[in-house]
């Protein structure tokens, strides 16, 4: 297949999605090499003639490439349908939006549940540990295949925001603008601690089988569900939990046992249960590890501003949420201060909300309005009509 054909086919991926297969080995931060790479992705909108309207949306930890439109598996709207679509802040009548499943993910991109071409077996725990920078490398491979030299914008929330920061650090010349929502420049001790609880829950499940559960035809569902329950608490604010559930009971009276008496218990159990249907336990281990290893300043002697030294011409927009205690506003401020110190063009606003970390994909008009304002003015500056 010639390059032209590959490119043409991939550009038609659409909301149904497509998978890029790259035969070129991908060298990772750890020194390991992935011999061949698959990247599953969806696109929304059309790439313009001079290929200047591409927007890369980076997804958070447990989501996937189905940012908008209906998800083929769950039948639900894309996870960011409020933001990505015609007339939305990431207006698909204007921009060509690309969203790809991250490296080590479980929605079509190469990860621990893929087949290792050298052994012919599922990778499992023999999959190399990856980093956020490796995820970004895989995205760059996709952009190369799509023939996109420069993104109009890279946009991401949570782990997606960290990818956007990594993009700015590693490929500033390939960015016109970057939007970082509810993220942090590094994982804190508390962040790592919560992830470790999740990983230990998975590994303590007898069905995990040292990561080889696929061969045994089982899945560590209990462990993965507990991991999700613990993580889910960190995505919500205390106020949001209180407002939603308070001390409301499932039925009249207490059971005087350990059933889910409280609505909040039942809610968390439900969250755990639906999660295991759509996510892979080993992917959860690898992606949380990648986040824990994330420390953008580390490669620059602890000086975060140095990470953005080459990104002075990128237009940055940083958002935080007042009730986000997973990646609190103080972390976003660190990013913004480093951007200012580097002389980059940065905007920052803290959105007032009681919805916690998850606010970034919930109904949050102040976020959507500010994001739309930023994108529209950047589009004018970029000469997009």
């Amino acid at each position: 297949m010639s390059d032209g054909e590959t490119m043409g086919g991939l550009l038609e991926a659409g909301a149904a999605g497509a998978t890029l297969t790259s035969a070129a080995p991908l060298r990772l931060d750890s020194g390991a090499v992935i011999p061949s790479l698959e990247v599953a992705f969806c696109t929304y909108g059309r790439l313009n003639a001079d290929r200047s309207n591409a927007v890369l949306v980076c997804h958070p930890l447990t989501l996937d490439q189905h940012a908008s439109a209906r998800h083929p598996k769950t039948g639900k709207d894309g996870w960011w349908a409020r933001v990505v679509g015609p007339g939305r802040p990431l207006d698909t009548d204007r921009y060509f939006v690309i969203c790809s499943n991250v490296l080590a993910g479980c929605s079509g991109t190469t990860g621990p549940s893929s087949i290792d071409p050298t052994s012919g077996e599922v990778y499992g725990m023999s999959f190399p540990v990856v980093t956020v920078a490796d995820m970004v490398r895989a995205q760059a491979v996709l952009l190369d295949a799509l023939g996109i030299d420069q993104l109009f914008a890279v946009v991401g929330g949570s782990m997606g925001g960290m990818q956007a920061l990594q993009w700015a650090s590693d490929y500033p010349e390939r960015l016109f603008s970057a939007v970082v929502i509810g993220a942090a420049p590094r994982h804190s001790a508390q962040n790592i601690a919560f992830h470790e609880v999740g990983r230990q829950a998975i590994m303590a499940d007898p069905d995990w089988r040292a990561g080889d559960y696929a061969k045994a035809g089982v899945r560590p569902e209990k462990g993965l569900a507990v991991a999700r329950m613990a993580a889910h608490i960190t995505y919500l604010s205390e106020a949001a939990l209180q407002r939603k559930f308070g001390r409301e009971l499932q039925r009249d009276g207490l059971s005087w046992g350990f059933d889910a008496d409280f609505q909040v218990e039942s809610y968390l159990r439900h969250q755990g249960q639906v999660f295991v249907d759509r996510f892979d336990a080993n992917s959860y281990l690898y992606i949380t590890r990648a986040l824990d290893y994330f420390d953008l300043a580390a490669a620059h002697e602890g000086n975060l501003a140095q990470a953005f030294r080459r990104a002075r011409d990128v237009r940055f927009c940083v958002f935080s949420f007042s009730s986000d205690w997973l990646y609190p506003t103080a972390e976003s401020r660190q990013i913004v201060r480093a951007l200012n110190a580097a002389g980059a063009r940065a905007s920052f606003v803290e959105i007032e909300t009681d919805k916690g970390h998850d606010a970034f994909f919930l109904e949050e008009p102040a976020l959507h309005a500010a994001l739309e304002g930023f994108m529209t003015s950047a589009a004018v500056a970029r000469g997009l009509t």
Partner: protein
Amino acid sequence: MSGREDFREILRLVRPGSRVLDVGCGEGELLELLAREKGVDGRGLEISPEGVSACMARGLAVVQGDADSDLDYFPARAFDYAVLSQTLPQVRQPRHVLAELLRIAERAIVSLPNFGHWRVRLDLLVGGRMPLTHALPTPWWATGNIHLCTVRDFTELCDDLDLRIEACAALANGRPARPIDPKHPLENWRPESALFLLSRANGAPRPASAGERTDLFG
């Protein structure tokens, strides 16, 4: 101040194509004006989220933060001008903020209401109440001004901080700016509001280049 008469004067002072930080930039009116009229590369610092969002919609690069704590993170001499328009009386540490402005910028443009204005003095002396004037339109219980000063107070602070007053103008409602000598005793009575162009007395600011006004006001 209604109509923000200081904007017109700031617009005249700023060199075309320069780098400007507007501290307390509100909804970005001044930055937009400077970008449009002077091709300025502008940045803003604003405390209210509504203000920041409005700025972003205008395509301005504005950071939510406050002058007291966020100026410290800008590198030295990152800007040609730092503008503080009618904001100094509202910061917690005016002395620190003023010093910071002239660390991060070659020049600072500061406008402030003059608490030594004759009407202010009269209001307090005769009426025995906190003054309500054109430059100070908000009642004491609603104002954000916590560090009001007179032209003389400010001039002394500049001396103390080793700042040079390159120019000063009196601003009054609807009238053209009037260049003044801020050390003249009468000028502590006359201006409702004053605009100062400041530089570091010890650091040598770059010489006025083509396009920069040397007749600073009038």
